[in-house]
């Protein structure tokens, strides 16, 4: 089946037929519909549709929010590296990074809207803000940054072949292009703050000694650790998604150097993060936690959260991928690179899981039981809706917009090489 939408596809790029594209889209669209039904149930009937309760007041959704926002950090960090620090190689992934950031942040905001008991009162936070609350900072920064991402996404959309034919869009895109550097700066500032505030959400919890951390001024150490870990895994996630899109589309999208550069940046930051996390953990075990009357070993006596989780978080999914990404010999192999990037992403997800779920599972009162929680199908459905939404937005963006500026060049190079090989074979 020929592409009926070929007029919309960027010149010089090859995309699958419309039929194949629809086949790819269909299951994700079905999943999105099912997820929207689940979310609708929670909005109409209330949060009694979930398995959360008065003890496990945060569940799968908050874990998802914290994780996707950390993974979506690639958008701001790539922008920062490209536009502020002038790492030009990253220009070939910046569009893709913006789409990933947009998907992650908008998905997280949508889930948050379902997760609160009174979504229609969301504006209260802007009207009666409590400046001492980390959640206020998170709400302000994420809302502003999502707006920045939408503005950053606009030029990508406006560069679409058909839209480019509209003169006013062309002018608008050109004008937007001029403020790219400003947007990158604002985005970086906002992102540093909300990534930190997300860590601060838990670090300030004096009443939850497992999460509580000391820090600098009003910021607990988790504020800085969250910024660092998000900045570290952001490039890893960009690497991972780019590789995945290359495999699924069977196209070369970026040069191998870009992968290696992303891995080097990620590895370096991950190593710094692992060091900072290890120091923070030692301070917490020896000073912060005992100071509140809780011995750290107690937390790890409640199964299944043994000390293995600490080892997995810091060594297995922290130090190990950092070493792989920092070793030139290993970095030269895409397989190692992708594995290390995936491990780094798992590490940050595990960290967010520990901060959200383990914190709530552990008892604080001596006569309080250790509790477990498993999400309801409505919660899982809503979670899957975000995944499906992400895949759909990315798929459409990949098909109709030029997410990888080097793709055309790489295709031409590959074609020329093929021709050369064919000619060499003939003579």
């Amino acid at each position, binding site marked *: 089946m020929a592409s009926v939408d070929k007029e919309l596809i960027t010149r010089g790029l090859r995309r699958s037929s419309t039929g194949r594209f629809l086949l790819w889209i269909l299951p994700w669209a079905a999943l999105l519909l099912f997820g929207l039904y689940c979310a609708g149930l929670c909005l109409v009937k209330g949060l009694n549709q979930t398995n959360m309760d*008065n*003890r496990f*007041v945060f569940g799968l959704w908050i874990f998802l929010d914290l994780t996707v926002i950390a993974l979506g950090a690639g958008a701001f960090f790539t922008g920062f590296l490209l536009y502020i620090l002038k790492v030009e190689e990253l220009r070939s992934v910046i569009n893709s990074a913006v789409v990933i950031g947009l998907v992650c942040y908008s998905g997280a905001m949508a889930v948050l809207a379902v997760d609160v*008991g*009174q979504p229609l009162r969301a504006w209260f936070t802007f009207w009666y803000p409590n400046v001492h609350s980390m959640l206020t900072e998170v709400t302000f920064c994420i809302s502003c940054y999502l707006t920045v991402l939408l503005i950053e996404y606009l030029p990508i959309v406006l560069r679409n072949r058909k839209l480019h034919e509209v003169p006013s869009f062309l002018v608008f895109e050109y004008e937007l292009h001029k403020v790219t550097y400003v947007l990158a700066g604002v985005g970086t500032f906002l992102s540093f703050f909300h990534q930190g505030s997300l860590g601060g959400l838990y670090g300030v919890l*004096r009443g939850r000694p497992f999460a509580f951390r000391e820090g600098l001024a009003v910021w607990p150490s988790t504020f800085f650790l969250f910024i660092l870990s998000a900045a570290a895994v952001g490039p890893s996630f960009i690497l991972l998604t780019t590789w995945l899109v290359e495999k699924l589309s069977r196209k070369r999208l970026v040069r191998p150097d870009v992968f290696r550069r992303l891995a080097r940046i990620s590895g370096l930051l991950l190593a710094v993060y692992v060091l900072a996390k290890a120091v923070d953990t030692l301070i917490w075990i020896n000073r912060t936690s005992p100071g509140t009357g809780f011995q750290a070993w107690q937390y790890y006596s409640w199964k299944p959260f043994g000390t293995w989780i600490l080892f997995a978080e810091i060594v297995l999914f922290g130090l190990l991928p950092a070493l792989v990404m920092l070793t030139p010999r290993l970095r030269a192999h895409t397989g190692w690179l992708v594995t290390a990037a995936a491990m780094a992403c798992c590490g940050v997800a595990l960290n967010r899981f520990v901060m959200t779920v383990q914190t709530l599972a552990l008892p604080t009162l*001596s006569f309080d039981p250790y509790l477990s929680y498993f999400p309801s199908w409505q919660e899982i459905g809503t979670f899957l809706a975000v995944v499906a939404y992400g895949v759909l937005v990315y798929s459409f963006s990949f098909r109709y917009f030029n997410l990888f500026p080097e793709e055309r060049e790489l295709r031409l190079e590959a074609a020329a090489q093929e021709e050369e090989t064919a000619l060499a074979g003939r003579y």
Partner: protein
Amino acid sequence: MTAQNQLRRVARYGMSIDIDKCNGCGACMMACAVENNIPPAPEAANDRRGVTWIRVYKVDNHRAYPERRTAFVPVLCQQCGHDTPCVHVCPQQAVDVDPQTGIVGQMPERCLGCRYCMVACPYHARYFNWWDPKWPAGMEKTLNPDVAPRMRGVVEKCNFCHGRWHAAQQKAAAAGQTEIDAADYVPACVEACPTGALRFGDLNDSSTEVAQDAQRPESFRLLEKIGTEPKIHYRSRRDWVREIASAPRPEGRDGLRG
């Protein structure tokens, strides 16, 4: 704030609970629910989803018979007096501490239902309305007109029967007094306790029973090391009961069981 209010003495309301006297009858929970218009739990609710502003926990010394001993611990909002965990986390100022009374207040009308305050509370004394409040037909006539029922999707907690405090204030104002009579302001749980295990009063006034109870050697507060200065003072002459104040210990390590 009126000039009259400014002249009024600053109170620090608190409670003392004699665990040795508590027999776990649950009258306090019942009185609290009736006073504060807490609806009956829906069929789908479990013990982790109900609304119980005061909750009686059963604890034991984790020994086998015949050394087994049991006690009952009523837990309500501990009205933290320092660095109140729920106050500074609320993103929209729906929680505050009344400087005149020291009571930690909750404004359900402003609550977003984000539940961050519930995560912050180490005593699990805050409750979320998972369902719409519903009363069986006819039962709505028993509702307390001084207390507004809360809607689905908001957090609520003990406020030392704020409706009663307002009523006491109005009574004092009508009599031309600036101070309320201590006898006019007693929370429903204290009033209902058949054994007199619960006492209520101003901790700033050393002549009150509750202030004297707080000074007793067998008095303790839950998780005192966290540094939130709770205003609920428990007491017991039994050593193993006083241990409940400290951090939890996993089972099998001489821990207490709830």
